[in-house]
């Protein structure tokens, strides 16, 4: 079992989380017309045997999406952080 140190809820079993895949790929702009960019975003993965940045969502906890840095060879977790670093509330003008 993995134990993920949720920044909101503390250390939790990974069964509480939903896996969201490789966090190192970036989505092309919504109106990007280049099929190659979309192909790479949807399909191409580096799939490292080692440190891997990946999304997990704490579905049965705070429901926040996290970026977890984990070694795919031994599951040692190096860091956990919110995927959306901080939600800056826009102040009313």
């Amino acid at each position: 079992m993995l134990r993920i140190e949720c920044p909101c809820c503390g250390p939790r079993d990974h069964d509480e989380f939903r896996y969201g895949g490789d966090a190192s790929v970036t989505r092309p702009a919504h109106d990007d017309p280049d099929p190659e960019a979309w192909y790479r975003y949807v399909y191409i993965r580096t799939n490292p045997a080692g440190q891997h940045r990946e999304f997990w969502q704490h579905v049965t906890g705070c429901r926040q999406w996290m970026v977890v840095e984990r070694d795919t060879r031994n599951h040692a977790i190096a860091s956990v952080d919110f995927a959306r670093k901080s939600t800056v509330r826009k102040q009313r003008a």
Partner: protein
Amino acid sequence: MARYSAFSILRNALSGQKNWQRAWRAAEPKPSYDVIVIGGGGHGLATAFYLAENHGIRNVAVLEKGYVGGGNVGRNTTVIRSNYLLDGNTQFYEFSMKLWEGMSRALNFNVMFSQRGQLVTAHSADQLDGFSHRANVMRLNGIDADILDREDVRRLVPYLDFSDTARFPIHGAIFQGRAGTARHDAVAWGYARAADGHAVDIIQNCEVTGFLRDRDSIVGVETTKGRIGAGKVGLAVAGHTSVLGVKAGLELPIESHVLQAFVTEPLKPLVDHVVAYGADHFYVSQSDKGGLVFGGNLDGYNSYAQRGNLGVVREVAEAAIALMPCISRVRLLRHWGGVMDMTPDASPIICPTPIDGLYLNGGWCYGGFKATPASGWCFAHTIATGKPHPLVAAYGLDRFRTGHTLDEAGAGPSAWLQ
């Protein structure tokens, strides 16, 4: 190579079993080969065998980083079937089934192929309709398939849950009588011995650490036993396809995930077929030793660790009990994990690559064992001729770019959901 036969068993029994030969030589690498196949699993060994047998290419080495049969060929649940729906898969897996039917004779090695039949249970009228569609596709391709109703299933496998309290009542099943199992270690050993009989060098404990290049072409490999030249290099390394792919400069649509398998303590004969649960991911057969061999879903996150987590053990046990309440008290003897190279459509890749001299056989997901002979046959053809065998024309690396994916499960492009 001495042939195995009833006579050889008798002769060796009379001489105290002291005169058996090694099944294959402990080869050391030569400076160069016509073809190097990386990966001494079922697919790599079968490829080497068919390169020699079908194409007359005998100056071949198989490089294995561990020992023959230590990877996924010795970690799977040994199920063999050809009940695929999509064009490209249907014909390829049936070709594989035909090779299985002649394998023990072709290799002079008993792979204990047992065509005990496989059924997948259906738990709604709609699911049974879907299975009828699949069965019709199979029959149109000359593959045996039957649709069973609830009473047929009860007669065939009475130990499933037919009670009023079953979580997902059984409506029927799709059945393929020619499906079954084989002794997976014997498949690796049989191909290794037969390839060795064609003078193929099988080099164990020889890990490939890099590729030798001449301009843009690959002309050999760097290994833990030194540099070895090669006219052509074929990759057949299952879960580690990306690791070597990156070294070669390939960009791949592959993620590595762990799949667990399980075996219980030995029981008296109970499960006479291969049974798959249509309401969840669970499939079971009984080994000749009596253990129930079964498996379920992927662990669900990228992993190169050949071990799984306990959450999946619980999920698989829940599915097992929902289908077969009678095994609730049976104890688990062992469970283990294998690293799967998952593609985004759960179909494999066999093709020449954009890199000159490099050929790829990978992305077998959790379904590589049943494909072993056809994979070797078609990959050998692809390496020998430089062009994909017609049966693997749909398994090109390009299909993801062009939109011609073969998504049998319809699960979409997240590898861990396939």
